[in-house]
């Protein structure tokens, strides 16, 4: 699900307009905006009017202006657009419902209708809409409480709250003395060092966990099953010891499964540092599906880049990132997408090239097969995983691919050569790991893009690509493919 899914249709369009403006660099034509969002001129005008009113509370820090031809966004340097998004979500009824259930655990229809000032029929409608969103997380609201696997419930709340909690709120509300001392205890007992981001994440997780600890009848069926191979894992045993000790101090009776939940959180949700993970990786149980899939995917990637061998440091980084992604894929269902994964893939694929996209797909296939998950209909989590694999591959690609030097040598009338050169440079601008310049004699190039058929012999070029005077999209695709091949 996307964070905008909490919003009503009208607010969702308003956020979409703001996002579009951000993506387009702050200014977009009225007509393009209308077409991209597939709305009528009148609707767009209405939404813009709503936005203007909505943004008044920010007193000029954020405003949207329109002259009927262009729409423009203004942000003061110290203001983050995230504040606006967050407030949109927090004011939505669906979010308030979710938040209410978190805080009160159980409710009656009358209580919640009164507290949120909505009619019972609206309440039922909203719960129905929410349940449709929660379906991918395999949780649902029913009979005045939230149902589902405990791990999934906490994971869902963690995702939502992490997005919606500002740094200031963390400092004030979450980094309590009690949480700080617990985190310090974690660091000491597990012999790890947590950075500021990890401390904030773990604080939020503890806050959610403490709230949920008192709920009766929690469901653990899936987690118990999935954790069987982790029984002898070194870190799992350490966490178990620590959690039981911690809760006994506060006289809270916890089930065995409580420690499993924390182990999963610790190893999948960007809490452990790379250094801590690599130390754990040396002793972690190899019988676990995640250890298995981490190794398989890493070796697949390394094989792809042969004969180039990444440094040990890069290999470790790769292992670290893959472990987070694969752990999430194995233990969890559903994902809260902060970016539209398809849009992201479509945009990024221009710089990645088809090879990396295909490799990402291969990695996902291998991962799903290894952890026995089917991918007949791709879930949000799988889509997100695909994006994350691609991101990891980009990091590797960027780090180990050699920088290609590309020369453009067009034997055309000066004016035509100039414009075609500029067009080529512009189109290759976003391709990672290349330097594009006008061809200079006596310089060495990995690739020369030229219009010369055989009139010249490029002794200092590895490859040449002959482009037609009517430079086409086909040419561009061919050039990008060749660049990708040369980079490996």
């Amino acid at each position: 699900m996307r964070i905008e899914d909490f919003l009503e249709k009208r607010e969702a369009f308003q956020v979409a307009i703001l996002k579009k403006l951000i993506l387009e660099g702050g200014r977009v034509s009225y007509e393009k905006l209308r077409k991209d969002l597939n709305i009528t001129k009148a609707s767009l005008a209405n939404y813009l009017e709503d936005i203007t009113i909505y943004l008044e509370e920010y007193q000029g820090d954020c405003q949207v202006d329109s002259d009927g031809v262009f729409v423009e966004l203004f942000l003061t340097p110290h203001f983050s657009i995230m504040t606006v998004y967050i407030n949109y979500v927090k004011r939505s009824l669906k979010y308030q419902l979710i938040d209410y259930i978190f805080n009160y655990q159980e409710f009656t229809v009358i209580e919640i209708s009164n507290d949120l000032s909505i009619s019972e029929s609206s309440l039922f409608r909203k719960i129905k809409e929410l349940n449709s969103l929660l379906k991918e997380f395999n949780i649902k609201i029913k009979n005045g409480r939230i149902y589902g696997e405990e791990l999934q419930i906490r994971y869902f709340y963690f995702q939502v709250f992490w997005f919606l909690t500002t740094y200031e709120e963390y400092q004030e509300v979450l980094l309590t003395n009690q949480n700080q001392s617990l985190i310090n205890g974690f660091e000491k007992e597990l012999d790890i060092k947590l950075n500021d981001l990890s401390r904030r994440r773990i604080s939020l997780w503890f806050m959610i966990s403490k709230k949920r600890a008192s709920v009766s009848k929690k469901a653990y069926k899936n987690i118990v099953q999935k954790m069987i191979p982790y029984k002898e894992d070194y870190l799992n045993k350490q966490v178990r010891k620590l959690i039981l000790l911690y809760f006994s101090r506060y006289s809270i009776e916890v089930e065995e499964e409580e420690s499993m939940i924390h182990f999963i959180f610790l190893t999948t949700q960007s809490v452990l540092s790379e250094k801590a993970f690599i130390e754990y990786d040396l002793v972690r149980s190899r019988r676990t599906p995640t250890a298995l899939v981490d190794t398989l995917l890493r070796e697949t990637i390394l094989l792809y880049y042969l004969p180039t061998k990444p440094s040990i440091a890069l290999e470790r980084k790769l292992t670290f990132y893959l472990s987070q992604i694969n752990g999430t894929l194995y233990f969890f269902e559903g994902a809260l997408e902060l970016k539209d994964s398809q849009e992201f893939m479509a945009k990024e694929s221009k710089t990645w090239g088809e090879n990396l996209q295909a490799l990402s797909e291969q990695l996902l296939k291998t991962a799903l097969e290894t952890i026995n998950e089917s991918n007949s209909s791709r879930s949000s989590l799988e889509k997100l995983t695909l994006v994350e694999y691609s991101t990891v591959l980009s990091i590797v690609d960027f780090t180990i691919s050699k920088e290609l030097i590309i020369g453009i040598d067009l034997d055309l009338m000066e004016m035509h050569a100039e414009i075609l050169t500029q067009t080529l440079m512009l189109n290759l601008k976003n391709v990672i790991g290349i330097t594009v310049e006008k061809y200079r004699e006596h310089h060495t190039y990995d690739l020369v893009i030229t219009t010369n058929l055989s009139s010249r012999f490029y002794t200092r070029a590895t490859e040449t690509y002959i482009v037609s005077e009517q430079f086409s999209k086909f040419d561009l695709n061919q050039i990008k493919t060749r660049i990708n091949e040369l980079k490996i």
Partner: protein
Amino acid sequence: MTEKKYIMSIDQGTTSSRAIIYDKNGRNVGNSQKEFTQFFPNDGWVEHSANEIWNSVQSVIAGAFIESGIRPNEIAGIGITNQRETTVVWDKKTGLPIYNAIVWQSRQSSPIADQLKEEGYADFFHKKTGLIIDAYFSATKVRWILDHVEGAQERAEKGELLFGTIDTWLVWKLTDGGSHVTDYSNASRTMMFNIHDLEWDQEILDLMNIPKIMLPKPCSNSEVYGMTRSFHFYGAEVPISGMAGDQQAALFGQMAFEPGMVKNTYGTGSFIVMNTGETPTLSKNNLLTTIGYGINGKVYYAIEGSVFVTGSAIQWLRDGLEIIKNAGETEKIAMESTSDDELFVVPAFTGLGAPYWDSKARGAIFGITRGTTRADFVKATLQSIAYQVRDVIDTMKEDTGIDIPLLKVDGGAAHNDYLLQFQADILNSSVQRPRDLETTALGAAFLAGLAVGFWKDLDELKEFYEAGEAFEPSMPAEKREELYSGWKQAVAATQAFKHTSK
């Protein structure tokens, strides 16, 4: 349709781990290699993380499967070959090593070895183990760990700790603690194994105060030691059915099954191993007596000599003198030399090994004239490798009384035709280079395949084995002996020079 089967060889070396998958014809159909971290905590100390080694092995197994497209359940058996003597002690319950693996090169246990020598135990150890007391072997390394890790001795005595060389460690991990075993070839490098009785020697263990309970069960080199647990072998339970230390595996991979057959691996140094048959021969010249392999109820002994400087002499030309760009070009450069082989390089950078055993000797060059060229230097350095090998081979002949008509070679420098021709000339023996120079991994694969019936017997191996190229001696006898006599003079002169700066 019958499913195609393969053998996987795991070659766990000093700087990297490799996995190679072989088909029925002994052809490499997929492989993967991974380097791991070397730790140097103090001068002369070399350690590895045993867990990192294990992880690297897991990775290369996966890599070989991915590269070849072969599935784990298509593997009929696994062979392991390993860096020898490197010592791991771990907690039996948790599987966690209590200290880093102490690598064979590491000198941290030298004081223990020195004390044993001072106390006059040299002969005692030599007779029982065939070895010369040295920190190189596992016994002093185990003692060092038990001395330096708090509570280790007590825990070892209670049976809470296990010892193993890398073969043992890998089988223990692959079987998830199911098998604690080693093979004769690795056991014979521990300085605790009685090579005559094929058992751990209680007198040695008592002397070293090493509890027997922590030692692995010694087994032959070709039998099923245990099955991989499926979670450690990507879903399949496969028999681990062959094991041998790297040099002995190379001997087997070179098909040196008959007494008198010798192999030489030209690596950083050279390891020359000769099959001496079913009776151990104790050297009078400080060569090591060891177990080559045990198979089908029989044990074949070997005698081993090493040359300290081989590939490292070529590295010296490249990195020290900077007169070559890479090792590959030495062959061409040496052939360009027009000198009469009167230049002698004695690369005793760290002393002289067998048969001289002079640790204080240092390198020297003799016969330089105004006309000496870079090509002469390169040629003389390659020749020095061959001379040193002859030194060892001659010693082997003297110790065993067995003639050596053929030397089987492998390792990096075995690519050098000039070296191999000169080696044949100076030995007056044939020198044979196999088609596949990865004889170590191949040997482990052979041992594993024979145990599970993948290959019926040694004859079947001989059927598909490609002997490769042979270099026949073509140098007149007079010239050969003149040159070798020049080398001997050069060595003697080198040994005479013992200048130490004040």
